[in-house]
């Protein structure tokens, strides 16, 4: 115990002497603001490239109306085309159906 007192007193004096030590300042870690811009810039560029390359082509929509072209025989036995516009088909006849009935 006596030994410890002697040693403790020695270290107490040593700590007191160390109060005069020149302690270096704690290094302040710099937060680099430019670091933010790099990933943001890369992400923006990639988005732009993606937008340009993967932009969907506009879908071609079918006209809402249906054009019906029929070939009819006139009163003087002449052939004439009749063009009608409608929103739906009422009847549909195959273009080759006449071949079946003629023969």
């Amino acid at each position: 115990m006596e030994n410890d007192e002697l040693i403790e007193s020695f270290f107490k004096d040593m700590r007191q002497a160390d109060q005069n030590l020149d302690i270096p300042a704690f290094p302040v870690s710099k937060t680099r603001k430019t670091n933010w811009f790099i990933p943001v810039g890369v992400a923006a560029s990639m988005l732009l490239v993606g937008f340009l390359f993967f932009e969907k082509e506009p879908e071609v929509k079918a006209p809402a109306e249906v054009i019906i072209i029929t070939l009819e025989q006139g009163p003087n036995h002449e052939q004439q085309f009749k063009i009608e516009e409608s929103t739906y088909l009422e009847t549909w006849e195959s273009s080759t159906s006449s071949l079946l009935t003629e023969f």
Partner: protein
Amino acid sequence: MNRKSLNQLLHSHHREAFIWSRQCCGFDSDLAKDVLQLTYLKILEGKATLNEASKAKTWLFSIIRYTAIDELRKAGKMITWDENHELVDVPEEVDGTDYDAIIKLLPAMQQQVILMVFYHQMTIEQSAEVLKIQLGTARTHYARGKKKLKELILKSQTEANHGKRRTDRKLL
């Protein structure tokens, strides 16, 4: 632990870390500054990670010690870390006020255990963790170091008393 918490932890231990670094560098303040900078870099770059927050001081002291050993090797200042190394040249005169010089008269392992226990208020178990040695070995260094240091302190005190008497006689 995030960077902010690490910064706070290092900041709170900064003074003690520098003093320990200096003690590990043979009381060379300039080298101690470099060692401390390197230690902080290792920690902030994630090369050394803290697993248990309760062991922060032990962890920090351990990194400082190993960094100091590396830097001392690079500087060509070899320190004998042999656990059984006992050879110390004790000078005829010991200045009792030169605390660093008295500590340097102890073998390296004894110096560090004694400094951690008495100067830095750590336990022998903690000092064993820092030095990565068995608890029994740390206890041996502690006991031997204490005995040797006591002899040195007494020697310095005796010399101081003799010197005082001599000057008293001269004055009479």
